[in-house]
């Protein structure tokens, strides 16, 4: 019997969903809504953020946050396209497109964070 890769993708989805559930709202609040309201403008000054992000722990944290959020999306979006839009016939290209984007985003995050 052929081994399925499904548990692997599901695990990334579940971990990513948990990471996103706990962390994404506060990040959008601080770096999006509050920034526009002017509340966090000083906190997001170039020198402060550069110092904060340069710490190895921050870089690892951001890498995990970005990568797992993307894998969480890839898994959900794949099923939504397949079931919501009846794209079951194009299961393979949909999967390659979704997970491929997540892998690409992960590589880009690794490259950017390594250079900071």
């Amino acid at each position, binding site marked *: 019997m052929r081994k399925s890769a499904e548990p692997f993708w599901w695990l990334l989805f579940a971990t990513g969903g948990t990471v996103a559930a706990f962390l994404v709202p506060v990040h959008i609040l601080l770096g999006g809504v509050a920034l526009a309201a002017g509340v966090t403008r000083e906190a997001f000054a170039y020198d402060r953020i550069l110092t904060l992000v340069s710490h190895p722990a921050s870089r690892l944290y*951001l890498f995990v946050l970005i990568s797992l959020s993307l894998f969480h999306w890839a898994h959900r979006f794949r099923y939504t396209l397949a079931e919501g839009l009846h794209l079951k016939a194009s299961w393979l290209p949909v999967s390659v497109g979704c997970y491929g984007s997540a892998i690409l985003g992960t590589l880009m995050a690794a490259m*950017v964070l390594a250079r900071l």
Partner: protein
Amino acid sequence: MSPFHRPPQFNWWVGNRAFTLFVVRELTSVFVAAYAVLALLLLRNLALGRDAYEAYLRWLVTPGMVAFHIVALVAALYHSTTWFALSPKAMVVRIGGRRVPPRVVVSANYLAWIIVSVIVAVIVLRA
């Protein structure tokens, strides 16, 4: 086409509240991913230098992006609450052989969520 083949329907989830909420829940992941891309762009501009970073921040506070962040925040909150609501079903917690009531598991998730959010906010605002 075989006469027994039903043509695909794309709107099966419209008009049924449970199905619509299900699709909305799945689509919150699009906003989660969009946020991840914005975070990646922020880091890339940070790596490019002060001018690129400050120009990026100015773009983030344009009306369209502010509207996006508000919608994305609502979507992210919907993802969090639906995710926590499902947690007792995904993982049955037992202490001393007895099952911890689902309500307690959900409450523990909310408590952890608040603590984690406060820690992130303190680090970003005071570091």
